[in-house]
């Protein structure tokens, strides 16, 4: 039930607008002040001067800041009758009469939109409950699991999902035919998965996927047919297609990948820094920067993802007969060290399980490699003497596994959806799984999303 005290205040339009204006101003301050200002000004109690003494609330009617643990805001409220306080760490409004956070008031929830409210309340509706989580299986159309696992992973990726729901492609694409345009097909999948269930039965929810198959086969004949393909290659193909569509709707503007704003490059692209280090004088001035859309990690003799990243980071001895050090002239084999110059918001790590031997046959490495639910990537980034690299904590959001051999295998994916629940996607079957189940997977591709910086 919503707060009767706020409803009372909202009865009078002038009061309502005053409340919302002040509320928005306080939220703006909270969201835009530095760590220091926030802690010294809005997270410090006016009464006891303690910082973070539990939550701190900023009064909606005067400049008072009161803490929770010593009940200084509660006393302020009783003393002067001001009953609303804004929580200075999450911007939520608390009613000190109900002794509860105010929820269930759409205008308050969308208070930043209040000046357009008349239009909004007529032209929009709250998102439907059904389909909120986008859970839907994808029927196997004949060895298409390597595609459906990538589609499920991207459709539940927060950056790809938001890009589609914001209609960046839809609003500009002249094709508008999801069986001829890859990005339109992806939009169709997302519309089917997240839209109101009244309009989409299970068969119609497959349409977007069928369109994606058609677009893929038209764009790359090798993907057609019933042979099993590599999910990692399909991911690269998928991201390339999204980029090509972006270039097309931008009238084929020449866009250098490192400056491209398409969803593929803005969400998945990082930069690798490789330096050739002389083993004699340790000169490392021979430096190159390359864009990277994912990291492929060797797993031989390794049991954890951290070990794989460390070995990637340590570098490898080059056998380069033409090498001659610019600094000391040494011709000793140098070491090539790879570090990360720029991390992407979405980090894709491929565990190299398929080894193509000199003999021509391919073998699959089935060793279990442990990977964490949260990964700090700071240790693998390039460090300048002068600059401190803050902790960069990534959150695991998807795992793609391949069971079976190289050519005869089956792909399944596990994705974390909004709210933190994990689900397993095995073609048309969708099942809820625990995070422990996820971390036991024999992972082939793992997807992380930036969660905390600093």
């Amino acid at each position: 039930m919503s707060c009767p005290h706020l409803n009372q205040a909202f009865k009078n339009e002038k009061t309502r607008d005053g409340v919302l204006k002040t509320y928005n101003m306080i939220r703006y301050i909270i969201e835009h002040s530095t760590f220091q200002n926030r802690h010294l000004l809005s997270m410090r109690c006016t009464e006891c001067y303690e910082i973070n003494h539990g939550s701190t609330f900023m009064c909606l009617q005067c400049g008072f800041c009161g803490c929770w643990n010593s009940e200084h805001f509660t006393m302020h409220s009783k003393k002067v009758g001001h009953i609303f306080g804004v929580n200075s760490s999450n911007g939520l409004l608390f009613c000190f009469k109900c002794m509860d956070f105010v929820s269930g008031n759409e205008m308050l929830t969308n208070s930043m939109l209040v000046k357009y409210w008349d239009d909004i309340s007529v032209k929009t509706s709250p998102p439907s409950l059904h389909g909120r989580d986008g859970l839907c299986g994808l029927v196997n159309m004949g060895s298409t699991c390597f595609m459906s696992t990538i589609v499920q992973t991207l459709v539940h990726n927060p950056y790809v999902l938001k890009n589609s729901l914001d209609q960046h492609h839809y609003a500009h694409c002249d094709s508008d035919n999801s069986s001829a345009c890859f990005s339109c097909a992806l939009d169709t999948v997302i519309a089917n998965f997240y839209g109101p269930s009244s309009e989409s039965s299970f068969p119609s929810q497959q349409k977007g996927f069928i369109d994606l198959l058609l677009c893929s086969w038209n764009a790359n004949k090798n993907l057609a047919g019933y042979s099993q393909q590599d999910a990692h290659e399909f991911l690269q193909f998928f991201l390339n297609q999204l980029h090509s569509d972006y270039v097309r709707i931008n009238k084929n503007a020449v866009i250098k990948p490192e400056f491209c704003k398409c969803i593929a490059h803005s969400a998945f692209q990082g930069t690798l820094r490789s330096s050739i280090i002389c083993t004699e004088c340790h000169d490392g001035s021979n430096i190159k920067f390359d864009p990277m859309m994912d990291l492929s990690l060797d797993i031989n003799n390794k049991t954890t993802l951290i070990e794989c990243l460390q070995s990637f980071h340590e570098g490898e001895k080059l056998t380069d007969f033409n090498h001659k050090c610019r600094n000391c002239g040494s011709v000793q084999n140098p070491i090539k060290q790879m570090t990360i110059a720029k991390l992407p918001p979405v980090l894709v790590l491929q565990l190299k399980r398929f080894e193509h031997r000199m003999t021509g046959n391919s073998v699959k490495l089935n060793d279990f490699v442990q990977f964490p639910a949260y990964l700090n990537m700071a240790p693998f980034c390039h460090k300048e003497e002068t600059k401190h690299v803050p902790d960069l904590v990534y959150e695991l959001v998807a795992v793609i596994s391949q069971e079976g051999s190289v050519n005869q295998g089956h792909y399944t994916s596990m994705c974390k959806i909004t709210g933190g629940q994990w689900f397993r996607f095995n073609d048309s079957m969708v099942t809820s799984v625990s995070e422990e189940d996820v971390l036991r997977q024999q992972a082939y591709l793992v997807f992380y999303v930036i969660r905390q910086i600093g």
Partner: protein
Amino acid sequence: HPTIQSTSHSIFDNLISSMIQDIVARTTTQAHALRFRYGIDPK
């Protein structure tokens, strides 16, 4: 008299309690908003 240990514990407890209250605030407010919007317990 406050000592370095007692003050350190007190600052640590402040941090933990504000983090717990932040998580509980966000979780309960979101759950209440969803229940209010959809009328049922959207498990």
